[in-house]
């Protein structure tokens, strides 16, 4: 899976929680939760969705390692099979 495909998955998960948003407009280092108004409970749902779509196990302790688009993409890219 290349970076573009990963971002497509990430955008789709973010759109499920925040359908009114346009995740493609996120800057790579912007805090996703703040930019898209996603509360901590809904952010967990995003992570669960990403796990289902990519097969990458995201322990909840790693929650803080996926706070920006760049971090999220790198985190998943490094672990995806």
């Amino acid at each position, binding site marked *: 899976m290349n970076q573009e495909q990963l971002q497509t998955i990430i955008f789709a998960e973010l*759109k*499920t929680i*925040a*359908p*009114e*948003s346009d995740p493609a407009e996120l800057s790579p280092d912007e*805090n996703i*939760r*703040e930019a898209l*108004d*996603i*509360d*901590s*409970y*809904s952010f*967990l749902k995003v992570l669960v969705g990403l796990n289902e779509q990519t097969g990458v196990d995201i*322990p*909840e*302790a790693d*929650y*803080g390692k996926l*706070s920006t688009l760049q971090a999220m993409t790198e985190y998943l890219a490094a672990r995806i099979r």
Partner: protein
Amino acid sequence: MFFQPIKKNIKSMAVQPNLTDYTTIRAEFSWEAVRRELSGLPGGQGLNIAYEAVDRHAEGPGQNRIAIRFLGKDGGVSDLSYGDLRDRSNRFANLLRSLKVDKGDRVFWLAGRIPDLYPIFFGTLKNLNVFCPLFAAFGPEPVQQRLERGNARILVTNRKQYTKKIAPLLNRLPELRYILLVDSTEDINEQVLSLPRLMAEAADMFTIPPTDPEDMAILHFTSGTTGLPKGAVHVHNAVQTHFITGRYVLDLHQDDIYWCTADPGWVTGTSYGIIAPLLHGVISIVDEADFEPERWYRILQEQKVTVWYTAPTAIRMLMRVPEELPGKFDLSSLRLVHSVGEPLNPEAVLWGQKVLGLLIHDNWWQTETGGIMIANYAALEVRPGSMGLPLPGIEAAILTHLDAESVRVEESDVEGELALRRGWPSMFRAYLHDEERYQKCFAGEWYLTGDLARRDADGYYWFIGRADDIIKTAGHMVGPFEVESCLMEHPAVAEAGVIGKPESTIGELVKAFVVLKAGYKATDELSHELIGFGRGRLGSAVAPKEIDFVDNLPKTRSGKIMRRLLKARELNLPVGDTSTLEGSTTS
């Protein structure tokens, strides 16, 4: 399942609790004695929260002690001493005076947890203005409703919030005189001014005018079942409750390092995130960032937090993280953990004991009560799942309504409405502009909380549920009516009924049942569109997270949506007597 009461060994505690003999302290308690422990304004000029929390320390040996330790999102740490806080709040009070903001005028805050909050809060109170915080995750509609209903004169906010939520609404807010931007070094126009510029120009000496303890100090909006949000009015006298709960419940001692995780947009974030710790002269930790398990454990370790006040949603999210994570941190400074927002399930109380080595102490109160009313105490036995015993000075009871005006006080082990005998210092004094709704909250001498509960034979209170349709999600109240009205503004929606669907982490989740207008199809796309529509207008804190399409909504013969029935169906519970219903089938 029944959980055994958990006894404490007081002698083994490193810090001896302030309240050990509950019965005696309760019997001998008087609010007059509490009032005498507070300084009062110099020269007998009354009682002002800002003086008690800030100036009386700043004018004594506490001047250079740290009041607020602020942890920035970027990892930066900045300290504000009691002396700094006095000087900077004086500047803001002078600034308000120079803008000709009159006594009682409302100053609103919409800028999250940043260092400016604290001087602005106390400066507002020093100039005898009224502070009203708004939660940053409110969308434009809740923000506008509250600003308008609260007669906002001044709004302190940031550029992002201003551009997104305020600028489009300005023509609907004729009473709003100035908007002060915390992150703009230049004025935008004659109405939208730079806070840093004004603060730099203001003098740092200010004498607090005489303050009647009954002068309005803080306005907190809370959601009602029907109609607009209610503005609960609190007065300076509330400081007595903040002080005594800081002593007996939070158990603050002078060397404590205290962390309250609540956002100042909610009442816990002001009563216990700003006022109570400073009254006791302790160091109060403020974290700008949102919840994140590892960050939170690191703060507990690095800041050597001793007393921690948090919420069930956060605790339950921490419970989902494997125990190895907290195991990596040294949490040995922590001696006391409190929780508020919704009932804390017994499993969470015991999780604290197992993972943090400390029980979690649940307590109960509301926006209207201004401070903690019923609590589990450091020295007393904890009954997991119980909200605990009433604060000394507070008389609680379980009532049954006999008719519109009269009630019966019940004995133990009877379920009924939780009530408090009126007259404690932090009781709300009004719902702004709504005397009728205020009066409806009382039956004779009793304030009716709207919560159902029971008391056991030993006086411990146990929460049962809400007596009305108000939704409690992640510790805050959402009025179903606000959400329904918003959804009905969407062209596809004919009707909407909104409930709190039980959810194990956040307590309840806002769920909407929607009847579509003819010509619209119930599709996933439309469901997403409605969720986005709600979020855009109401913000993530209020908007529905789930939508179900139905053919019709159950209503009473007078046309009122039976939300209780929607909820019963959602939970597959027996729906009870439906004889007063019309249209009682759903798809």
